[in-house]
Structure formats: structure tokens, C-alpha cells
């Protein structure tokens, strides 16, 4: 029987993978995808717990998260295209103009 623990464990693993990716990868698109993984791991938690406690609030939240993630994808990709046009690279190590 797959209990709520399994779901939570899976989502924790996914979250860690995402975090690891964000911290280690240099390609902005990959980092972006890692963030998506993190978001979806959270979504999974929401749904699992929602089901577990029998409250629909969590599932409604997931819709919000997905909407925001979609918007974020649109904005983020647009930024990256703009940046690529400028620098011909999407390596985040080149993204260091926002500093002192």
C-alpha cells in the first residue's frame, strides 16, 4: 500500500534534485528546469497532503502554483532570449552585472 509517506519522500527527493541542479548547473535553462522540478515537488506534497487530510485547499493551491509557474516560464524564457541576444551565452556565470 502506498501511503502518504511515500509521496512525501518522493517529493523531498525531487526537491533535493532540483536544489542540487540549481546550485551546480551553469546553463540557465537547466537551472530553470530545476526550479520547475522544485515547484512540482511542492505541488506533489500539496496534493498528497490534501488527499490525506481530506481538505481541498491544497489542490486549489496547486492550480495557483501551476499558473504562476507558467507565467514564470514565459517571463524567464523571454529574459533568457534577451540575454542571449546580448551576450551570446546563457551561462549564469556571465550574468553578474547586478553587483556593486
Amino acid at each position, binding site marked *: 500500500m502506498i501511503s502518504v509517506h511515500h509521496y512525501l519522500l518522493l517529493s523531498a527527493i525531487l526537491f533535493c534534485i532540483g536544489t542540487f541542479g540549481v546550485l551546480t548547473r551553469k546553463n540557465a535553462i537547466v537551472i530553470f528546469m530545476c526550479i520547475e522540478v522544485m515547484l512540482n515537488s511542492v505541488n506533489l506534497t500539496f496534493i498528497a497532503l490534501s488527499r490525506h487530510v481530506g481538505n481541498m485547499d491544497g489542490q486549489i493551491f496547486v492550480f495557483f502554483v501551476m499558473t504562476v509557474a507558467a507565467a514564470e516560464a514565459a517571463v524567464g524564457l523571454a529574459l533568457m532570449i534577451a540575454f542571449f541576444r546580448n551576450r551570446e551565452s546563457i551561462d*549564469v556565470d556571465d*550574468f553578474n552585472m547586478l*553587483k556593486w
Partner: protein
Amino acid sequence: MYNNLWLIPFFPLVGSIINGLLGKKIKNEKVIGGLGTLMMFFSFLVACQNFFGLRASEQKVFQESIGSWMSVGNLQIDWGFLLDPLSAVMILVVTGVGTLIHLYSIGYMHGEEGFYRFFSYLNLFACAMLFLVLGNNALVMFIGWEGVGLCSYLLIGYYFEKKSAGDAAKKAFVVNRIGDFGFLCGLLTLFWALGSKGVWTMNFIEIGENAHLLESGGVLITVVTLCFFLGACGKSAQLPLYTWLPDAMEGPTPVSALIHAATMVTAGVYMIGRMNVLFAMAPTTMMTIAFVGAATAIFAASIGFAQNDIKRVLAYSTVSQLGFMFMAMGVGAFTAGIFHLMTHAFFKACLFLGSGSVIHGMHHAYHHAHLDDDPQDMRNMGGLRKFMPITHWTYFISCLAIAGMPFFSGFFSKDEILWWTFASTRGSYVVYGIGAIAACMTAFYMFRSLFMTFYGEQKTDARAKDHIPESGLTITIPLMVLAGLATVGGLIGIPHAIDIFHVGNLFHDWLAPVFSQAQQLNVIEAHGSASVEIALMILSVLIGLAGIAGAFMMYMKNPEAPGKFTAKFPGLHKIVFNKWYVDELYDFLFVNPCKRIGTFLWRGFDVKVVDGVVNGVGWVAKGIGAGLKYTQSGYLHNYAVAMVVGVVVIVGYYVFG
């Protein structure tokens, strides 16, 4: 009585405003000068009317208010005027001498660029002086008190393109301000002291009536009167604040005559007379006044010995004579002090105007010969009596008066002062002795100036010597009138001891309502027999004659004697010639330290300490920012790591903490 006291200062005020605003357009000297003189004359007429009204009246105190000035709680100040015998004498002197000097100025200032400005200032001065003497409360008096200071500033600085004139004007005002500081402190203390007894007033009559609430001879009254005396010192050029008066000679000569001889400088004496009730209650203060007066009299006289500028001699003589008046006030001889004030106004105004006439003539001659020698230096004069007979005779008469020769005005007033210093309950033989010596010195240096100017061989540059004219009528008429007054003016105050015709001491009786009460209450009187009084008189005449004889010996008989004398005592001469280095001493003690402290406070404290702290705070904030800014590397990974670490730390704290 008439309700027109306010007209007395009002007329000159109008004259001042008209001349000040429109004078530049009017241009015509006769109109401007005429207007100024006429306004003074009107005011003199009103003063006469009030004087005779007061004489005829039983009541001797009239007050008149034309409105409220400040009304704040228990501080109620009116624009109020007071007519009593004392102020009546003063308004007569001020408007009378004032009119003459205005008239004189028309001739003297002829052709000056700022003619209208001069008359505007002069009228304004008269207005302020009349406020001073007529004010029925200390604050209206203070308007006049500072107002005359202002006008003195303006008139001394009349030739403002000369740096020395500007300096002298500033010095006069600032030193006067030191006195005003004393006046204000005294006034505030008095107001509070009487107020704490339930009487909130600055009105002189009410102060007089309620003075008994204060402890006679107590600390409070001593402090109050000493403060007022400081004010008087500033205005009347007494030690240690006399230094401004000699410098004030930078002003045109009529100014010196009106302001720095006849009226303004006597304001301190008048003020003490006005507050005689308070002063009589403070013996310590009285003694201080007497000694300061005596010290000033002899000190200034000593400087008068060595001056060569004719106006400076007269200036030091004024300081010295003011010392006599303060001696009188200090020993309780209020009447004698005011009497001397009046006679001094006559003969000193005459002397100053006479010197002005001389300077005018010398200036004319030098101008004619295209020389720019100093027209005020007596070493360039001599023998002028041939050229200026009227000036000479009036100057001569006034010298006799100031030297105290019998039956000239100065004789009566000075002898009364000396008699009181000798015989008064508040008197002292020391003061008398100093006074007598100072009188001798006065006679000496006044006749020295007379001989150097009008007698002996003429030392004027040969190219100019025959072009010295006698002055015109506008100048000589005031001279003659004043010389007349200097001759007979004393007869209204014949002392009892020599009153063979039994006319009585008119002046004394006239002022009695003002002074006698305070004198009786505080047991101030001169006691002694008529024979002693007469003996003293003879003595002082002899002293005066000795002074004159000394001057005659040194400056007429042996013209080389003064040179020999200075050669013998070069150090003494140098010190006296340089006025005992008092100005230098003050610069060293007060002026320069103030400047240094000011500079230090500005550059040292303000800029370094306060702004140092302020800017320091700014620098600290900036420095912290400068250090922390390196954490903003701009690399995404750094931020991400920081975030993760932060999350781990916070979660860790809550889970394990």
C-alpha cells in the same frame, strides 16, 4: 497743563523723515538746513511753553501717555512722557543748544555732499535725546538711550569713506552697547525685584514711590544701581568705558558739540538723577560712582595735557568734566550734577563750536593754498585771534568758564560740586582732593589749547596763513549766544554762602521737588559753615589761576618749555601722548581674545568637532556599506547557496533548537 509734550520729540522726527526721504530731491541747502533748524526751534518753543507752564503750576509732575506700547500680562509699557523740573531743564538744554547747533551746522556743513543726510541724522538725534529725557518709564527712556547711540553711530560715521570714521562709529556703538547691557540687566532686575513685591512697573514715578519696598542699602538695590551705573558709564564715557568718546571726534564738529559734549554724553548723569531715589538708597554704589567719577576726571585731564588735535583736547576735557558730574552724583549732590551738566552744555558746546570755527577757517585756508595739512592740529595754529576775533573771544570766555573763574557759569557749578564732595555726608576728602587737582589740570590744558591756537606766533604754513577768514554769521551767532550763556548761566545757581543780594539758589529750588525727598530720607546733605565754603571757593579759584598761570608760563612766556619738559621725561610723555595705551590694552584683553575664540569655535569646534561627528556618522555608514557590498557578487550561484544555507539554518533552528 498742556497735553503737547509728545510734540517736542515729534517735530525733529518729522524734520528727520522729510530730510531723509526728500532731502536728495530738495538739494537746496537753505531749505534743508532751515527745515531742520526750524523743527528744532518749534520744539524749543513747545519746551519753553511747558517749562513756564510747569513753573506756574503747583503740581510738579505731569505725565502724558499717547498710547500703549507693549501690553503683555503684568508688563504694561506706555508711550508715556513725563514733565517734571528735571526733565524740563533737560528739554530746554537739548532743544535750546540743539537749535543753536543746527543753525551753526548750516554754515559749517555748507557744500558737503551729504548735507541732507547730516540734517536728517541730527534731527533724528534730537528726537531720540528728547525721548530719553521725556520718557516716563525706563523703556521709553531706553528707546532714546539706544536711539542716541544709533545717531551717534550714524554721525560719527558720517564721513564713512574714511576707515577711521567707520571704526570710531562702530567702537562708539559697541562700547555703548556694553553700557546698554548694564542698563538692561539693571532694568530687568529692578522690574523683577519690585514685581516680586507686587508692583510690576517700569514707570519712574511708580518706581520712586515703591522704592521703599526694597531694602535700603541691600544687595538687590546695590546690584540694580551698579548695573544702571554701568549703563551710565558707557553712555557718559566714564572709566573704563570712556575710550569711544575721543575717537568719536571723527564726526563733524557740530556733532561733537551737540552729541559728544552737550547732550548725549550727559544722558548717564541725567539717568542717575532720574533714578535718584534708587541711587540714594545704595551708598556702596554712590561711593563707587564718586570714585569712578573722580578717577575719570583726573585720568582724562592727564591725557588732555599731551594732545595736539584741538578736538581731542576738548574730547578729553569732556570726559573729565563728565567725571565731575559723576562725582557730584556720587556724593549725593544731584542738583549740582545737573547744574554742571547744564553749564557744561553751554561752555563746552561753545568751545567745540569755536574749535569748529577754527577748523573751518584753517580748512578754508589750506584748501585755498592747495595744501593738505591737518586743519585740526594746534601745532599749525597760533596767533589766530587776529583773524577770528569773535571765535577768539567766545573761546576765551568759555575757557574762563571751564576753568572756574569767578562769576562765569563754570565757577558756580564746579564749586558746588567740590563743596559737596568736601562737606556731604556721602562725601570724601579723597574725592575732593582729586577733584581739586583735576580742576587745576583742566584750567591748564584748556588755556594751553587757547594759547596754542589763538596766541603766540603763527605757525601756519606761509602759503596759507593769510587766507584764514572769520566764519560767517550762522556760525558766529550760536557762538555768541553760547558764550553769553556760559558767562551768565551760572547766576541761576548762586550758592547760599555768597548770596549777598538774596536772590536765592533758583536752580536748587527748582529741582528740589525731584531730589529733596530722596536726600532727606537717606540723610544726604552738605553740612558746614559759610566761612568754610567761601574759603574753599577762594582756594579753587586760586587753583584755577595756578593752572592758567602754568599754561601761560609754558606756552606764552617760554614757548620752548614744553619741548624741554618732554625731552626730560620722554617715557612719561610717550605714555600720556598714547593715552596710557588703554586702547591697546583693551585690544589685548578683549578684542583679540574674542576674535581668537570666535575663530576657534568656528574652525575648531564647529567644523572639526560638530561637523566631524556628523560627517563621521556618515563615513561610518558609508564604510559599512563599502565592506558589505562585496557580498553582492552578482553570481546567481552565490545567492542560491546563501539562500539554501539560510533555509537550512532556519529550519535547523526550529527542528533542533
